[in-house]
């Protein structure tokens, strides 16, 4: 990002410089023509740069939407029982509709308006002033609307991730209201603090410069920790943990996991906000960490249970994607291999041991994967960030602990703490409010019948006609 920004600044500065330098050359009859050509070329090269970067950013935005629908919808949908498949997928799909409208009205403004260190304010209400020109505060080479729509895709998937915690038991209406509010009151402030210009935790303009390339804190800690709160607040599914509740279709989950992997390239490499080398770096790191995390989880499980499961392999891959997210544009490929492996072990440990010890029903392990993996990744980013990959503090300025900048780990800790805090408090308050207004859980007989019939009046499959 910074490299491209610099280069563009350079281009912007040039014409001014030239006006000055060229003055004495007036006597040269060819000079004005040359200068006109050069000016035209400068515009042309800017357009070409925009074309390349915008091509990648639009592709990335599409890939991030693909992560939610059908990616996450399938990953989660396959893990529930047959009677809840549509209800589960609809929770993701509802976010694609609702968060989009909220974002257009006020969400983008809250997240990326100037405002204060905590929140962006209302300057971009109804996208006022969000044009097709670049906004150099965020990305100097792509239309601001590209940036806006790309960020929207993040705002969609984040609440959708939470739904894994309360799968198979929440009312559709309550879910819609709760996650809409969550998107405004938890996601937007957090996004502003970390990525918003002047935000408290912003790496280049904030009080506590923390590193989060693509959303370890903003996306995964917020969703994962909120998921834990939801699981505790709503209580267990009827019959849990005595009744086995096996996934009704690991095939769907497998497809979903693969689409998450592919889509995540848009998520992480797109966060370079350009198509240059930094995007490549994030792409490579993403892929590497995913591979080692899948292997890590598989090894842990193979040792633990004697068999490597397909669900383990794909869960590990997702854990790796989560953990590398904040680090993807900051670390060397070999660090990515390590971060992934660590995430594979750590998240499988969280899911296998910690959950069963405490006994909460985080039905699809939204906390175990996103909360735990996001936290791990955020901290390891502080350890492994390298100015060779991303000189965010200036060329050659040490970035992560590995380069001697130990205090970065403290900053990361601060960011982790703040995102845990806002998630716990915000989620608790919102759950409480929605619970009072309309209740959260479906009636027990509706839970028995399944969300598909009780909430939507449909069935996922009908193989008899």
């Amino acid at each position, binding site marked *: 990002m910074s490299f491209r920004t610099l280069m563009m600044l350079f281009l912007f500065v040039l014409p001014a410089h030239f006006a000055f330098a060229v003055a004495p050359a007036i006597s040269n009859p060819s000079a004005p023509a040359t200068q006109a050509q050069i000016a035209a070329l400068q515009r042309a090269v800017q357009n070409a740069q925009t074309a390349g970067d915008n091509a990648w950013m639009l592709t990335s935005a599409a890939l991030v939407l693909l992560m939610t629908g059908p990616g996450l919808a399938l990953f989660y949908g396959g893990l529930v029982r047959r009677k809840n498949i549509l209800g589960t997928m609809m929770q993701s799909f509802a976010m694609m509709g609702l968060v989009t409208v909220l974002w257009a009205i006020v969400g983008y403004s809250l997240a990326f308006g100037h405002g204060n260190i905590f929140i962006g304010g209302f300057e971009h209400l109804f996208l006022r002033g969000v044009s097709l020109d670049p906004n150099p505060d965020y990305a100097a080479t792509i239309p601001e609307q590209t940036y806006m729509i790309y960020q929207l895709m993040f705002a969609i998937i984040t609440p959708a991730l939470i739904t894994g915690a309360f799968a198979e038991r929440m009312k559709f209406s309550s879910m819609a209201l709760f996650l809409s509010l969550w998107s405004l009151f938890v996601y937007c402030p957090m996004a502003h603090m970390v990525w918003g210009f002047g935000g408290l935790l912003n790496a280049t303009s904030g009080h506590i410069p923390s590193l989060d390339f693509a959303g370890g804190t903003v996306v995964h800690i917020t969703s994962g920790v909120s998921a834990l709160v939801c699981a505790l607040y709503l209580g267990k599914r009827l019959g849990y*943990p005595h009744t*086995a*509740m*096996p*996934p009704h279709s690991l095939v769907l989950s497998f497809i979903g996991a693969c689409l998450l992997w592919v889509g995540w390239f848009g998520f992480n490499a797109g966060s370079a906000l350009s198509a240059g080398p930094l995007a490549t770096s994030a792409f490579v790191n993403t892929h590497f960490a995913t591979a080692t995390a899948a292997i890590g989880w598989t090894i842990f*499980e193979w040792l*633990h*249970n004697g*068999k490597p*499961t397909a*669900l*383990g392999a794909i*869960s590990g891959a997702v854990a790796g994607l989560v953990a590398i997210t904040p680090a993807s544009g900051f670390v060397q490929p070999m660090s990515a291999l390590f971060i992934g492996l660590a995430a594979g072990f750590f998240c*499988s440990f969280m*899911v*296998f*041991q910690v959950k*069963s010890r405490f006994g909460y029903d985080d039905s699809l*392990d939204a906390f175990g994967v996103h909360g735990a993996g996001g936290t791990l990744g955020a901290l390891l980013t502080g350890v492994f960030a390298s100015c060779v990959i991303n000189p965010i503090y200036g060329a050659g300025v040490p970035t992560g602990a590995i380069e001697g900048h130990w205090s970065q780990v403290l900053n990361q800790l601060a960011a982790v703490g703040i995102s845990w805090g806002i998630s716990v408090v915000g989620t608790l308050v919102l759950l409480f409010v929605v619970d009072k207004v309309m209740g959260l859980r479906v009636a027990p007989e509706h839970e028995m019948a399944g969300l598909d019939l009780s909430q939507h009046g449909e069935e996922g499959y009908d193989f008899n006609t």
Partner: protein
Amino acid sequence: MLKIEAVLQPSKLDAVKDALLEAGIEGMTILEARGHGRQKGHTEFYRGREYTVDLLPKVKIEMVVHDELKDKAIDAINSAARTGRIGDGKIFISRIDEAIRIRNDERGENAL
């Protein structure tokens, strides 16, 4: 008329069907089932949790036959389905009072 119900390993269905056809039994109806018996189930895993699946896939063949075909049928099933291992399945025989062919309302043994 007798009704012969046989619960079998799914992998033996084809062999048993062929043996029955050879024994002259053409009409039969097959149902997917799950069974519990002496055969132990197996263990499956879900994210570190182990659970036992003690209902195993089986198929059930039902056929209504003339009384005198009884032994032929039993022999056919036995020989085609037996592996000698637990889980091979069972045969149950009961009496049927009436059979009707819907196509032409034929009744009794003619309807089989």
